[in-house]
């Protein structure tokens, strides 16, 4: 926000009470005007921040490239002086800018400091021929970014720290077979605490999505717990994800009751819902439940225990959420959610006990539950005036429809018929889904929803 913009906003704040008194503006319009001006100014500030951040990234890349081109000619002591000097200079310049209220440039220079620190780790490793376990370098880099975020109160640095944390975890998982990579949660929890401490919503979104990514990294790695995955273990874990996603969703809804927590609820609602939906989609494939190693009699008992614990958690959260609400007063689809949870819980346990005996039927049941989930998402989105839930519901519906078309007709139809049918299905589905989605989201927007 430029000084001129700030001045305009302050003058408007000072003038508006008089305008209200004179009857030129209603009290409701007063707040709406202030909100509008603040929003407009905030978006122009984001452009400044974005440009400054791009500047920092380019400068960082330029510095590294310059050193690279001339590296062999520079003595070791001079190299070190340059590395430490550049690092110190970027923080000093950030301090000067922040002290003069040039927030965007100051933030960008802090980000430059974080980038230079990472470059310094790898350049010092090169100078001293340190060829260690390289993900440790990413971890140190991530922690340093979080230190900058905490001490300089920089959301950019937090975003960098969160990004580096998930990169560190990905390299440990995929290149060093550490799956699940539990140490991920140490820096992740630090980042989460910082987002709460400073009320960073963008940071919270990043923290939530990295958790989502971590959960699915676990599934993608070839090994699990220092051995190969057992048959049906992945399905057992995805089942847990469905209910973990639902738990996050319920907690987020509960957070909106509390004044201090309410602003953090929307990103968690989205992540919880997406996690449950993606997991249900994966479970809707019969292959997810099929055994390839028929010698396997039963899964390790830990899976049953974990499933029961998660089911108890969801039940406890539902009690907490609805303890003061008579169920008869809820709309039908919210009452139906209790039945949905009960049936899903029974299906989860049954699927673990009957281990791969009825893959087709289990997948069929998950398809029915998915369709019920679509209805619930759309109805909830309309009732709460939340467009993102409606969009998610329609996207989920389209994905299920397409997946089943591929499953069913890929082998049954001649390829040309298959593609013609698929194309026609896409066109018809796209038309009807988009029309319904637009109708509902327009209703939400007209009602002042998000």
């Amino acid at each position: 926000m430029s000084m001129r913009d700030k001045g305009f906003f302050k003058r408007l704040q000072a003038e508006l009470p008089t305008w209200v008194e004179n009857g030129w503006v209603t009290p409701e319009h007063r707040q709406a005007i202030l909100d509008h001006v603040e929003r407009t100014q905030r978006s122009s500030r984001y452009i400044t921040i974005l440009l400054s951040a791009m500047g920092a990234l380019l400068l960082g890349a330029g510095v590294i490239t310059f050193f690279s081109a001339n590296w062999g000619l520079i003595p070791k002591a001079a190299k070190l002086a340059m590395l430490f000097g550049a690092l110190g200079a970027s923080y000093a310049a950030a301090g000067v800018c922040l002290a003069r209220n040039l927030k965007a440039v100051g933030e960008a220079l802090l980000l430059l400091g974080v980038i230079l620190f990472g470059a310094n780790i790898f350049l010092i490793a090169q100078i001293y021929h340190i060829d260690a376990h390289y993900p440790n370098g990413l971890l140190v880099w991530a922690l340093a970014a979080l230190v900058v975020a905490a001490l300089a109160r920089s959301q950019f640095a937090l975003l960098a720290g969160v990004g580096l944390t998930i990169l560190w975890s990905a390299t440990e998982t995929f290149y060093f077979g550490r799956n699940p990579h539990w140490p991920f949660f140490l820096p992740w929890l630090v980042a989460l605490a910082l987002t709460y401490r400073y009320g960073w919503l963008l940071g919270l979104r990043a923290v939530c999505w990295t958790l989502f990514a971590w959960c699915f990294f676990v599934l993608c790695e070839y090994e699990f717990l220092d051995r190969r995955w057992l048959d049906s273990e992945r399905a057992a874990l995805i089942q847990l994800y469905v209910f973990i996603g639902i738990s996050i969703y319920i907690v987020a809804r509960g957070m909106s009751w509390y004044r201090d927590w309410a602003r953090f609820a929307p990103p968690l609602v989205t992540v919880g819902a997406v996690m449950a939906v993606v997991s249900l989609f994966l479970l809707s494939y019969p292959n997810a439940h099929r055994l390839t190693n028929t010698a396997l009699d039963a899964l390790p008992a830990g899976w049953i225990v974990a499933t029961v614990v998660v089911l108890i958690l969801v039940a406890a959260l539902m009690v907490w959420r609805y303890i003061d609400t008579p169920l008869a007063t809820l709309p039908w689809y919210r009452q139906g959610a209790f039945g949905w949870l009960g049936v899903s819980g029974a299906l989860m346990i049954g699927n673990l006990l009957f281990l791969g005996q009825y893959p087709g039927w289990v997948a069929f049941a998950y398809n029915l539950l998915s369709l019920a989930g679509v209805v619930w998402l759309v109805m909830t989105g309309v009732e709460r005036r939340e467009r993102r839930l409606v969009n998610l519901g329609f996207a989920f519906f389209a994905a299920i429809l397409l997946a089943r078309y591929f499953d069913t007709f890929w082998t049954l139809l001649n390829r040309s018929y298959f593609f013609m049918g698929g194309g026609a299905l896409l066109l018809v589905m796209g038309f009807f889904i988009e029309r319904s989605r637009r109708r509902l989201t327009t209703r939400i927007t007209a009602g002042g929803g998000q």
Partner: protein
Amino acid sequence: MSLCWRLVVVFAIQAAALLYMIADRHWTLVNGTPVILETEPVDPRSLFSGDYVALRYKINRLALMELAGEREFRPHEDVYVVLRRGEPYWTPVSAHTTMPAVPADGAVIRGEVVESQARFWNSTPRSQDGLYLGVRYGIEAYFVPEGEGRRIERPAPNEKVSIRIAVDPRGHAAIQALLVNGAERYVEGLF
């Protein structure tokens, strides 16, 4: 705490982390036992700058049936290899999953198992004859000035490249010098 002091603390913490990297490496170079290893240079590649020689040592592939110590190693776990002094090259004696006592005429170097051929892909154990262990010690890259990499990669027929490393009491290893025909070509120091 004012913003200025908070940024000073940020810089101090980050500088301390970088200085620790340098100090730890220097400590190994100064206090480590000098060990000469036979190398098999593989190929130089450009990284941030200049070249680095990707070095391969005889001890990167351990024939467990020829060594004392343990047989079961898992990928990505630490392995401790006891080296015995030789003339001029040091050779492996035994491999362990935990740090053994350092013999009087030897050294213990710590590595990371990168490949364990103790089992086939389907988890069936191999016979004892086929037990090989791929190990990485963190001394497999050596950065050299631009253009030097290829000369080291392809030494003249009468040149033999070897590496002198320092192994400290924790088992950490650092490259001390790159030798050509036993004479120092590059020597590492603090500055």
